[in-house]
Each structure stands twice: as C-alpha cells, then as structure tokens.
C-alpha cells in the first residue's frame, strides 16, 4: 500500500522497488511572521536515495531542511518506516549547515566541535581520553583526519564542509540533510564533496536530502530531484524528468536545459558505443 502511495506522489517516477526503509514528509507547511513560506510539501525518500532539492533563491529550500530538523515550527508529519514497514519511529537526522554562525577568529578547533557534540564533560575543563580516537575515525570517513587540531575559522570552505559532514555521520543517522553553501567552495572541492557523499550513500545505505545550487553536479550525482517553486514542490522525479519540465526550464534558463539535454544524449550515445 505504502509503495503505491509513494509512487503516485512522486508522479510515477520514483522507484520503490528497494522495499526498504522509507522517510515520508507529509503535508509540510511553514508560516513565519505571518508569511507562508512552504505549503503542501510531500516527499518520500528511500534508503540509498540522494534527493536533490533545487529552486530559485528564497524559494524555501533551506527552510524545508530546518523544518525537517524541527528547528522551524511546521505543520504536517515526518514519518520514518523501517525495513518491514512496521510501525514508525522518529528518525535520527544528521545535518550539514550551509555555514557557521561563528566568526572566523573564534578559537574553536575541529576537536572542540566534535567533543562538544559527543561528551557531557565541559570541554573547557578537559577532553575525555577516547575522544581523539573517535574523532579521527569520524574524520577519516570524509578524508579529513589531518584537520583535527585546526581552528574552524581557518578551514577552507571545502574542508569545513567535509568536517561538518563527518560530524553529521557520527552516529550514522537515518536521514542526512545537506545544505550546500551558495559560495566559498571551489569547483574541485565541490566535486570532491559530491563524490564523498556518493560513496557514503552506497556504503551506509543513507537517505540523503541535498539542497543544491549546482545543477550540473545534481544531474550527475542525484537519483531524484525535487523542484521547489512558489512555496511548494512543483515537480519531482528523476533528473531527466525534472530538467525537461517547462517550469524548471523557465526558472533556470533555456540555455542550461538545452545543454543538459544535449549532454545527456551524448552520454547515452557514448554508452551505446561502448
């Protein structure tokens, strides 16, 4: 039953054959200061899915992530069904924020960040003995072991994102929310980040929701795309489907879409040749 509903909501495009656990966002709405920011948002995400959320600036992409976190009050439900579809539990959520509120000169090291998140003992007093080992293991998942004693403010945009990703994966959450920075990360760093996320997704069978601004990378790495516009999800499906949708083309410009579809044809043609 659940699978049928799921397929319908996602406009017949989302494969539910995995038959595993499933995160459902049902009828989410957000109102802040009397203004409606989101309404009727429905999303179904399965383990191993990387769902990219795209949309124009100010469409409410980051707000949706914060609503899922429970940081912004919202209407609607968040359900997490385990593998057997038996009963629901509150999913544990990992979150990688767009940026930090801290200013760059703050003497907060990467180790401080992890220790504050993992231990009860005040870190101005001392660090527990085992924490070094644990933090190094966490950072290793995102190739960031060497960053452990650096200050957060001294990290490059790409390094900071990898550190935050490592933190969000300790412990491994049911659902991972990534809010990609608008700027501050070079193209190479961004690609490395997407590659790391893809590997993690396969290794840990994670459900991932990613707010993204780089459509090329979305096309390459996401297996589902949700387009937010006019306060709700206007279109949801595979990258091919969403990027050929008229509204999406209007928003991001015809040129980009044409180029994408042409590249896609080339890719298919190349695949045939091989």
């Amino acid at each position, binding site marked *: 039953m659940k699978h049928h509903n799921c397929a319908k909501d996602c406009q017949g495009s989302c494969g539910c054959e995995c038959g595993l656990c499933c995160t459902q966002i049902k009828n989410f709405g957000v109102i802040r*200061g009397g203004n409606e920011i989101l309404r009727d948002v429905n999303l179904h995400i399965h383990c191993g899915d990387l769902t990219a959320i795209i949309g124009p600036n100010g469409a409410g992409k980051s707000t949706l*992530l*914060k609503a899922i*976190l*429970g*940081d912004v009050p919202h209407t609607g439900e968040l359900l997490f069904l385990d593998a057997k579809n038996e009963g629901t539990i509150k999913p544990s*959520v*990992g*979150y990688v*924020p767009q*940026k*930090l*509120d*801290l*200013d760059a*000169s*703050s*003497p*907060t*090291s990467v*180790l*401080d*960040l992890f*220790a*504050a*998140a993992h*231990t*009860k*003992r*005040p*870190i*101005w*007093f*001392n*660090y527990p003995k085992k924490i070094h080992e644990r933090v190094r293991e966490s950072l290793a998942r995102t190739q960031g072991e060497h960053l452990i*004693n650096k*200050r*957060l403010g001294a990290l490059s945009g790409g390094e900071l994102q990898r550190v*935050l990703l490592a*933190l*969000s994966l300790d412990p491994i959450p049911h659902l991972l*929310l990534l809010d990609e920075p608008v700027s501050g990360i070079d193209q190479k760093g961004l690609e490395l980040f997407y590659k790391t996320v893809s590997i993690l997704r396969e290794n840990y069978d994670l459900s991932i929701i990613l707010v993204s601004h780089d459509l090329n990378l979305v096309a390459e790495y996401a297996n589902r795309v949700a387009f937010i516009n006019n306060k709700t999800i206007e279109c949801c499906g595979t990258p091919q489907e969403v990027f050929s949708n008229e509204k999406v083309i209007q928003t991001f410009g015809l040129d980009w879409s044409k180029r994408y579809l042409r590249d896609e044809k080339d890719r298919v043609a190349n695949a045939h040749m091989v």
Partner: protein
Amino acid sequence: MHIWYSLVDLLLPYEWAQHEFMKNALLGVLLVTPIFGLLGTMIVNNKMAFFSDSLGHSALTGIAIGVIVGKIFPLLGVQPIWSMLCFSVLITIAILIVKEANTASTDTIIGVFSSTAMALGIVILSRNGGFTKYSVYLIGDLLSISSSDLLTLGIVVVVVIVLWAVIFNQLLLASINQSLASSRGVNVRLYEYLFAMIMAVIVTISIQWVGILIISSLLILPAASSRNIAKNMRQYHVYSVLIALISGVSGLILSYFWGTATGATIVLISAVFFAATFMMKIRIS
C-alpha cells in the same frame, strides 16, 4: 573568615595586606575574576558584549526600584541587591523575547532596552536632586566588600561554575550553528535563556563593587585578549581565567598604592594584556 585572614597574614606579610578591607577585597577578586574570565569567553564568542553592557545599565533601574520599595515598606528592609536581581532577570527575558520576534536587529533592541532602563533609573534616583549618593554604583567600590557579601558571592560563584560545567558543551554547539545543535537534540532556546540568566546574575551581584560603567569591560577584556593567542577552547579558557586573575590581583594592589578606583585599575591592566596579546597575534601572522 578567620582562616582566610591568618592565611593572608602568613603568605602575604606586606603592608597593604594588613588591612581587613584589603583581605576582603582580595578574596572578592579571587572569587569573581575567574568567573568573569570564564563567562567572558562565551560572551565574546557569541558577540554579546553589548548585551552584558545593557545588563549593567539595567541595574540602575533595579537600584531605583529597590529604593522606592524600601521607602514604601521600610519594615521589609529590602536590600537593593534583590530588586536589582529581579529587574535584571526581567529585562533579560524581555530582551530575549523581543529578539525572537525578529522585528529589528539585535543590537538595536538591546540599545533600546539599555538606554530606557538607564534613563528610568536616573529619573527615579535623581528626584529631589539626590543622585550623588548613588554615584558609588557607577564606579563601584571593591574595598567596601564585607564578610557577608563574600558569603553571598561565594555561593553564587559555586552555583555559576556548576551550571557552566553542565551547560557549556551544548551552549558552544548552539553558538556554532543553531540548527546543527537542534539536529543533535540540544534545546537551543533553553540554553540561551540559561546563559543570559547566569550573565544577569553575575553582572548584578558584582555591580556594586565593580561599577556600572566598567562591568562589561571586565567581562570582555580577558576573553578578548585570550582570543588573540588561543588555538582551541581549552587554551581560550585557561588564558582568559589567568589574565582575569592576574589583572584582578595586580589591579587591586596598584589601586591601593595609587589611591585609585579598583575596578577601573583592573580594567586598565586587562587592557594592557589585550595590547600585548594583540602584538603577539600580529607577530605570529
């Protein structure tokens, strides 16, 4: 108290340490400056310098209310300190609530409350031209600290240290990124309120000895100096507490010989520390 007095006599056989008021003041400094150093780190981290300043200003209205209550119900014998505490806690809550409504930037909101509380205090206290007798609160008088004051101070210090140990990690996480903290189960609002309350209590308790005009400098300077040279949270706290302690004790001694106001002398020495660490920072980078 006797133990402390004989300890001072034993360890500090100097002329300045013979007086009872100096012994009291020394104990007061040793109790309160480490707390300033400790709390200051988070105040600077969260860019709340202006907030601590406004708490100091609101104390003036607290004093005024205490005076009025004292006049109306002389039998109650209300000490100004209690009305000051109540008022600063109230104004803290008010600032946080208005801040959450998100109608203006935080520093504007704090500015509005701070200046209103200050003006209200001055208007009440200056009625019939009697403001001069309250001017001691502006500069503070550390040498007037009594044994019973020290007891109150000691209790507050212990409570603050325990609370600080319990809430610090969550508070740090919330200051790094609010949503990140929520994702890890931290009730950001609760910790924000607790922190503001702790600040309000410690500022209000110490205002009569340190003075409204310089209280926030004492909170900010040690942490700001430490920030110049610290590389992680541990160093940040250790340096900050050390700088606060050293400036406190040396400021007390110097003010005795110079015949100057103690609080201000302490602040000046902290400022020297800031200049020195700033130079170190520039030389490193």
